């Protein structure tokens, strides 16, 4: 479902590029010649350009149509793969049906360590890994200071742990540093 739309975006950019090209490449005609009696559009010199535009435009339109067709379809199951039943016990992370599958050894260590602390990471693995990324690379922005406690708060809010948000904050920071930094 995403691919055609991506193509559509590319197509939209293509149309833009063409319009600029067409602007710059339009027929140059002496204004004097057209001043009083208006000359018809002089198409002859730009026939090759015009035909290439047409074919590009056709592609763009085709892409647009497929994008429209796909987006007008009712989406299938709207629920994401992510949220998993919450009443499961702690599990080995490599058993989680991960949508993107490939987890690095560091990911496995990090998620495993959090799971061992009785945190239900199922469905939020990517968010926890993203949190670890900003812990290790805040680039002086303060984004880590803003993100980690709020992520901890959401884990509590979603009933994924019995620990306090403060405790979780420290656990995430410590385990992220150990696994990635």
């Amino acid at each position: 479902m995403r691919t055609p739309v991506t193509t559509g975006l590319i197509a939209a950019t293509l149309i833009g590029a063409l319009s600029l090209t067409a602007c710059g490449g339009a027929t140059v005609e002496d204004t004097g010649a057209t001043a009083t009696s208006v000359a018809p559009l002089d198409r002859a010199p730009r026939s090759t350009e015009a035909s290439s535009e047409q074919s590009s435009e056709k592609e763009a339109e085709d892409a647009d149509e497929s994008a429209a067709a796909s987006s007008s379809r009712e989406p299938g199951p709207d629920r994401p793969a992510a949220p998993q039943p919450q009443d499961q016990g702690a599990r080995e992370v490599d058993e989680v049906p991960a949508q993107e599958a490939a987890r690095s050894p560091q990911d496995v260590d990090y998620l495993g360590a959090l799971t061992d602390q009785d945190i239900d990471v199922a469905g939020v693995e990517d968010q926890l890994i993203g949190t670890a990324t900003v812990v290790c690379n805040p680039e002086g922005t303060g984004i880590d200071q803003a993100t980690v406690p709020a992520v901890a708060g959401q884990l509590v809010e979603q009933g994924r742990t019995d620990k306090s948000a403060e405790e979780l904050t420290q656990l995430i920071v410590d385990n992220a540093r150990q696994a990635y930094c």
Partner: protein
Amino acid sequence: MRDTASRSPQRRHRNRAWLAAAVLPTTLALGVSLAPAATAQSSGSSFSDQIRPSDPPQRTPISTEYPSVDNLPAGVEVDRVEWITDRRIAIFIKSAAMPGELIQVQMLLARDWHSSPDRDFPEVWALDGLRAREDESGWTIETNIAQFYADKNVNVILPVGGESSFYSDWQRPDNGKHYMWESFLINELIPTLDNGFRSNQKRAVVGLSMGGTAAMNLAQRHPHIFDFVGSFSGYLDTTSTGMPAAIKAAQADAGGYNSDNMWGPPNHQDWIDHDPKYGIENLKDMSVYVSAGSGTDDFGRPESVATGPANPAGIGLEVLSRMTSDTFVRKAREAGVEPIVHFRPSGVHAWPYWQFEMSQAWPHIANALQLSEDDRGVDCTTGGAIAPVAANASGTIGGCVTNEYPVGDDGARQDFRNGSVYWSPDTGAHALFGRIHARYQAVGGPSSWLGFPTTGEKTTPDGKGRYVHFENGSIYWTVGTDAWEIPGDMFNYWGTTGWEGGPLGYPTGAAEEINGGFVQPFQNGSVVRTPEGENHWVRGAIAAKYGELGTAAHELGFPTSDEKLIRGGAFQEFQNGNIYWSAGTGAHVIKYGKIFDAWGAKRWEQGEFGYPTADHAAIPAGGEVVEFQNGTIREIFGRVQEDLN
């Protein structure tokens, strides 16, 4: 002539911002407000920068009209409407809730706005992010929203401004302004749109990031007004541990705002009243759409929409959006509200994803607004004389969005994604687009004095300009001068100087009516139509002097000649005097009368007095005086007095 989707994002801001961020102190305690960031300015800070739209090209407003909008709340009025393209307008509203500066709201006009002038349309409101700019919505700067909606029969409403505001009513002023966005949007904008801008009162509201939170708040706080609400990477839990602090940090970062001035300290009731997870009950009769990425950078993957690698802020903010959106969805389902959920398996906090979400949400928006199949997208054919012209220009104007419809006395028009084709029996079919088309629309199109186009858009020999000829005039455009219509007679007279290649250059404004005649400004002069219908031009220093005096409104009146070259300089005759110029003396006015006659008796500028060195002036004690190179001539009590140096 510009396509928002084709603009290259300018990274200058971001680089500078990250540089500035790097020197900020980082001794910040967990959960504590990021106080040092509060001193950062909008343009030089850190972590919400990737959602700040880049600088759009500077544009000159091209038209202003003054619609009257009835039945607005006291103190609210539409100040003016500017046409940006023929399908995009900027409405400037005098607000009672936020007095002071005018509030700008841009609007992408529904597909059939021009072809069905009696029809009202549903609206899609698109709210901006934390770093909303004062000049233009991020949606039009960073996404293809105008192109996407070009074939859809909804008006897209884009409030402009409100950096860090959450489109909320703030408790107190901050940063020199007192945000009252919710009051403005609900109490002032809605009646404005209902009364003056063809709303059928069915509304969807969507937003990204801060705008996602705000869309949810507006929908929950005014459920009778909206049929659809969409949050794209919004923060849908604002009160759980850590979120008030995160929002506080983000607002401090985006413009140096203090959350305490918005909703009070974190335990204040206002925070709860603006927490989307607590307002779900009010969404039961509404279509609810929630999307977010995962916080994983997918730049470079074949299916990715990302245009660059993610930065830590983009990851962190999307993690918060996703986690809080997930919390919201769980609460919604518990409350019996089933949102349409698009949680993407990757993606960070950035515009390309929100452009994608805009297209994903559309079919659901169309359902909620009960749009007919025809109103949802393209269903048109191109035929007759328009077809070959449209095909030839398709690279520029794109596919059709309407069928042809009658315009003017005897012609037809068909709208395309980025332009229109106009046809009449006398003129044939021609394609218009870009700023020239917008100007044509603003002037009144085929029903105006211009009539139908007689050419398509052409390029001037210097390569800098574009022009279109019409039945009774022309429109010329360059990047620096914008697009301006020139009446046919004035166009022809401009032609006697060599058009844009001559001394006058390109037009820089419309012809202004003065005392029954017209004066049109050009880069280096003006072209004039006298009340008697004669044409003249003024140029260079004489034109500058004439302009400084107010052109034909000055007592000099209209020119009665063009500029005449004379030994040592030039002069030009007007109804009530002349302007003389030489390189050494500059341009100066001398009125007809006794001084002029006395000077003339001495062979004018060629005689012993030489050129005037100052404008004809009044003597405070009574009388008039003109200073010349070699003397002075005065008229006092009707008597002329000549003094040579």
